[in-house]
């Protein structure tokens, strides 16, 4: 009839093996590589904003130091630790999926969801305080402690809101994905032969953590020694 192998000697197809792949191993490799391709574009997406941030930081160091002093370092530091913990629980979710531990996978994904939500809660508190203090750029911007630098501090706050806002958007998407993954893990979809989706979810979550690892020193810990205002 034809020389195409019909794989009749193989076991029944895995329910989650997509038809374009020969086997689960090839599917795993393609999905993780594809995720890295996407993260590559994400690195350059955040990189573009950060590059502009550095151009202005080097141009207006006094304003950047003042802008950094408007931040709640305790809240930012706490959120950094919270996000690192959520990365640990995400990594442990992948490990549990690899081991075929369904309950462990669900528990670790729920923990990741919890810490991700704590991060967004703290971020919401910070945003609220900034807004009340008149630190939202635009017509409501009322920060004038150093009048001659107010416009440049406002520019810093544009970067603050853009960078943390884009990061928070990624967190919200991650939280939504986690809800879906918790449901799938609960249904027992993930096994030692099919943990690829959890791994890919982890790649996304860890990337968002890495972005924050840079945002914390860039936005909260700007050197202000020897900077003369005005």
């Amino acid at each position, binding site marked *: 009839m034809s020389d195409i192998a019909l794989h009749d000697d193989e076991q029944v197809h895995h329910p989650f093996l997509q038809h374009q792949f020969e086997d689960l191993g090839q599917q795993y*490799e393609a999905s993780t590589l594809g995720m*890295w391709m996407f993260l*590559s574009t994400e690195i*350059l997406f955040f*990189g573009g904003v950060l590059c502009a941030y550095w151009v202005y930081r080097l141009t207006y160091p006094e304003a950047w130091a003042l802008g950094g002093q408007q931040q709640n370092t305790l809240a930012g530091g706490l959120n950094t630790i919270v996000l690192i913990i959520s990365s640990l629980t995400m990594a*442990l979710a992948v490990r549990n999926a690899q081991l075929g531990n369904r309950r462990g996978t669900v528990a670790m994904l729920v923990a990741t969801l919890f810490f991700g939500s704590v991060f967004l809660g703290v971020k919401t508190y910070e945003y609220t305080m900034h807004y009340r203090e008149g630190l939202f750029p635009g017509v409501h911007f009322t920060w004038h402690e150093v009048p001659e630098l107010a416009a440049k501090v406002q520019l810093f706050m544009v970067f603050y809101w853009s960078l943390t806002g884009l990061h928070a958007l990624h967190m919200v998407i991650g939280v939504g994905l986690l809800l879906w993954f918790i449901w799938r893990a609960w249904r027992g979809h993930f096994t030692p032969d099919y943990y690829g989706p959890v791994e890919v979810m982890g790649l996304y979550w860890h990337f968002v*953590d*890495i972005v924050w690892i840079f945002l*914390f020193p860039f936005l909260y810990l700007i050197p202000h020694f020897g900077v003369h205002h005005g």
Partner: protein
Amino acid sequence: MADDNENDHAVPHHITPLATYIIVFLALAAGTLLTWYASTIDLGWMNTPIALVIATTKAALVILFFMHVIYSSRLTWVVVIGSFVWLGVLFVLTFTDYLTRMWQIY
């Protein structure tokens, strides 16, 4: 057709030991405290490079261990390293311009 010896069609079964994850986590937490502490001391022009080195080290730990790149295929390494090469091109070309057009500021 398929070469069984290549073994590139098996789902990777490498499982990172729990201890590795815990150690990486503790290193990341320590790095966070260190970057905060370093920012409270006047180190002159060194403050910014130190913050960058700590953040880059933390990112490398996450990429290598949490994201399993250290156990990944060569092709994944190429994409990961390639991403940062392009990020480098973005920064280097931008600053060869900005750092050389306004001498009076820098």
